[in-house]
Structure formats: C-alpha cells, structure tokens
C-alpha cells in the first residue's frame, strides 16, 4: 500500500517540481522612462511598473525576469511569445486590444505639453502652428495624439519621433524641438531634472494604463496580475458615465503596499528612490516571512526611505 502511494506520488511530485522550476515569466519594459521604469546608475532596473510586477510575482509565487525592450518592439515581442508580459506604462487602446490582452487599468494619465521656459508660447494655439517641431516617443499615445489631432488634420506642425523619451527631452533642451508631448508623470520628472522646462498645458486624454499579455492570455497571467493588484491595495470605483467614454475612478487603500509604492515613486527625486530601493529590495526576497509581509515591508520601507 505504502509503495503504491509512493509510486503514484513520485511522478506528481516531479511534475510539481518541474512546474515550480518552469514558472518564470519575462517582463518587457522600455527603459528608461522614469518614474515608471528606469535603470539606476549602478544598472538596477527599478520603477513603479517594475516593482508592481515584482510584488505581484512574490504574492503569486512565480519568478520574473525583466528585459529592457524598445517601446515599439514590446507588443511584437509579446505577440511572438518572446516575452510574457509588457509592463511599460501602456495605455489601454482599442487598437492595441486587437493584438494583445490588457489587465485591469492601474493608472490614469494625461499628456503634458512640455516646452522651454524661455519660449514665447502662451497657449497651445501659439504652439500648434507655423511649422513648429513637436517631439514624441515612437509608438506612444503622445505621438498618436499629435499625428491624429494635428498632423492628419492639416495643422502646420512637424512631428519628430524618437526611440526613447529622454532623447526627445534632450532635443527640446538643445532647442532642436519646440515642444515634447508625453505622459504627465514622466514630464514632471523631466522638469525636476531640467528646471529650464515647463508644462505649457495638459491634454486631457484620460488614458488608462494596463499591463499586457499575449492575446487570449495563453499562460493565464491576467488573473494573477489582477488579483495581485487587488491584494496590493488597488480598488475601483466603477461609475459608468451617462454618455461617452467610460471612466474608472481609482481608490487606493490607505497604508497598503500600492499606496506606499505610489508615494515612493511619484514625488521623491530619483536618487533618493534609488538609494531607498537598494536598501529595501532585500526584504522582498526575505524567505523567512510570508509573501504578504514581504511585499508590505518592502513597499513601506521604500516609501519611508525615499521621502526621508
């Protein structure tokens, strides 16, 4: 009897072992795009998206590998199955949803129009004319906005596309561009790095960010990601609009890991976040505690050290 159980149990055990060993997913992210994802000077990959991914992986018991991929190559890589998850501040759009599946939304963003302080533009009307050069990152909704709302409608502006966002900002600072269109949090980050820049105006695009996986979710990751975000403390206040665009209100549980991660990444300067991250990341992989404790301690440590 005992032998038979053993004979039955052994293949099951090996199967389980194989599954544990195989459960590693590759997360593609476009680095650098602070504060959502960037590389510290020492070469660590950090950022809000990446730490959310790390925390969910700990909660759900799988491993991740973060792979930097150019923004416009992430969706093709996910479609081809080269990577499993795209975590790079992706706006959920109908066009993208044709080829990939999105998680629940996790962030609401608008586009900011970044200009130099010394520029003469008083309003968007001054800027969107006269052959002015507007920079954006290739494949982003910011680039899409300029293309479909200005260029396609015959407004006299020139859209200049860049592979990474910082290169566009650099050209704005150098005077080769008149403006850069990019998501608000990243634009705020640029202003803190470059005081000579300012936001001219905000384009109320109401974009929701989501994590993305291959169409049909062949590896069953969305459930884990959505559950994980809930466990981290992200809630939704779903009030369906009377007309037009659906709108999701986010509600963050105070004192939850999600709350701490937001506080850590959106506000403190990058070097503070980096120092905090280096000091705290160990707690996330401290095998002596439960996954929930590890995630909570890590997020709390990060928020506290970053805002010291």
């Amino acid at each position: 009897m005992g032998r038979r159980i053993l004979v039955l149990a052994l293949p099951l055990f090996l199967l389980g072992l194989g599954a544990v060993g195989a459960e590693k997913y590759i997360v593609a992210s476009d680095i650098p795009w602070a504060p959502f994802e960037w590389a510290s000077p020492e070469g660590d990959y950090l950022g809000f998206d990446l730490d959310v991914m790390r925390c969910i992986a700990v909660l759900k018991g799988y491993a991740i590998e973060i792979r930097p991929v150019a923004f416009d190559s992430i969706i093709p890589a996910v479609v081809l199955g080269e990577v499993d998850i795209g975590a790079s501040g992706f706006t959920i759009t109908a066009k993208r949803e044709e080829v990939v599946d999105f998680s629940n939304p996790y962030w609401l963003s608008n586009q900011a129009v970044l200009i130099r302080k010394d520029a003469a533009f008083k309003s968007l009307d001054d800027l969107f004319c006269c052959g002015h050069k507007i920079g954006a990152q290739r494949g982003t909704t910011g680039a899409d906005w300029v293309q479909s709302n200005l260029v396609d409608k015959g407004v006299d502006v020139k859209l200049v596309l860049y592979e990474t966002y910082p290169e566009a900002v650099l050209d704005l600072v150098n005077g080769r561009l008149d403006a850069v269109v990019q998501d608000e949090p990243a634009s705020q980050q640029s202003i803190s790095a470059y005081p000579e820049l300012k936001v001219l105006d905000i384009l109320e695009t109401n974009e929701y960010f989501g994590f993305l996986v291959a169409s049909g979710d062949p590896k069953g990751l969305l459930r884990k990601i959505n559950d994980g975000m809930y466990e981290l403390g992200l809630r939704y206040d779903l009030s369906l609009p009377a007309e037009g665009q659906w709108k999701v209100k986010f509600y963050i549980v105070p004192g939850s890991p999600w709350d701490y991660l937001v506080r850590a990444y959106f506000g403190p300067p990058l070097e503070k976040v980096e120092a905090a991250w280096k000091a705290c990341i160990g707690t996330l992989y401290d095998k002596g505690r439960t996954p929930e404790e590890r995630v909570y301690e890590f997020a709390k440590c990060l928020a506290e050290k970053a805002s010291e």
Partner: protein
Amino acid sequence: MTAVDWQNLVQGIPSLLRGLLVNLEILFGLIALGFAVGILIALIQVYSPRPLSALAVGYEWFFRGVPEMVLLMLIYFGLRQFRVGITPFIAAVIALGLRSSAYQSQIFRGAIQAVGRRQMMAALSVGMTRLQAIRHVILPQALRLSIPPWSNEFSSVLKDTTLASAIGVIEVFKKARFIMGRNYALALPIFMVVALFFLFLTYAGNWALGALERRYRIPGFEAKGAGERF
C-alpha cells in the same frame, strides 16, 4: 557638470564595464565563426571546381553587400517569424559572424593566392595530397600574410558589436543610453567614456596582433610593410 553628475558617472562605470564584457563575448563569438567560415570560403573559392566556387562567391557577395543592421534584423526577427527560438545574443553572433566571414574570406583568399600556385605544384610533386599541401604548406604562410589586413577587420568588427543593441542585446552602448536616460547631463561624458573603452580595446587588440605578427614572422616572407623591403 555638478557633483551629482560626476557621482552618477562614476557609479555608472561598473555597469558599463559589465556591458563591455558582453561586447567582448560577441566579439569572440563572431571572430571565431567568421574565421572558420572565412577560411572555408577562401579555400573553396581558390581550389574548388566551378559550381562550388561560384556558390562561395555568391555567399561572399551576399554577406558583404547587405548592411549589418539588415542582417541583424533578418536573422533575429526573420527567424522569430518561423518560431525559431533564438536569443538576441546568438542572433548577433551569427549575423555579425557571417558578415565578418565574407570579409575574412577575401583576406584569406588574397593571402592564399599570394603564396603562389607553384608551391602547390611543388608540394603535389613530392607526393603530398592537396589537403596535406594546404594544411602544411599553403596555410602556414597564408595565415602569416593575412595578419595585417586581418587586424583591420578586427578593429572593424569590434566596433560593430555595438550594433547588437538594435536587437535588444544589453551591451555597453545600450547601458550608456540607460545612463543618459537617467541623467540627461551625462549625454556627452558617458559616450566619451564608451569611446575611450573602444579606443583602448582597438589599441590593445592591434598591439597584440602586431606582436603575433612579429612572433611568427619568417624573414623574407613577411608582407611588404612600408620601408621594409625597399
């Protein structure tokens, strides 16, 4: 540059060096592949009957004619299309290695032809087979003659390894871009550091190849260097 910028620059150097190690790994992979295939192509072009040698000429024409960047895309994304699992690193070694093999084949072909047909005839007349003659008579001389032009190819492919960043290999150029993206003020200094790395490597590589050339020189048979034989 502010104190923080300097600090970030210094902090970034270990990360850059780890990136440079990846470039060196690509370099050794592609040189080895290019060397092996290059010699084969050269021998086929010189000694094989028509159909085979025409094929080798076609190979060389293709890999010398197509831009490296296109080759990288062809091999990496092209194979991906057919669900052939290939890492960016391996794709870079293959694409750059095959490209280099075409250039190296011309270096070796020139060197083999410089050794001269009469030596082959002499070797055959003392009873060697063709392969023995190539192995013991032709190649030892041809390889010596090919070191100077080969060092030129070495410098060229060393720099080409940065192209691998285009298909997602995280090497020194990509790391420098990460650092620039993190701190815009480092745009100029960080690429100066990368430039210095490569200047050092080309210098060290060419010095080593020069030493190799001197070490294996046969008096009277060296490639004609400036002022040596005139």
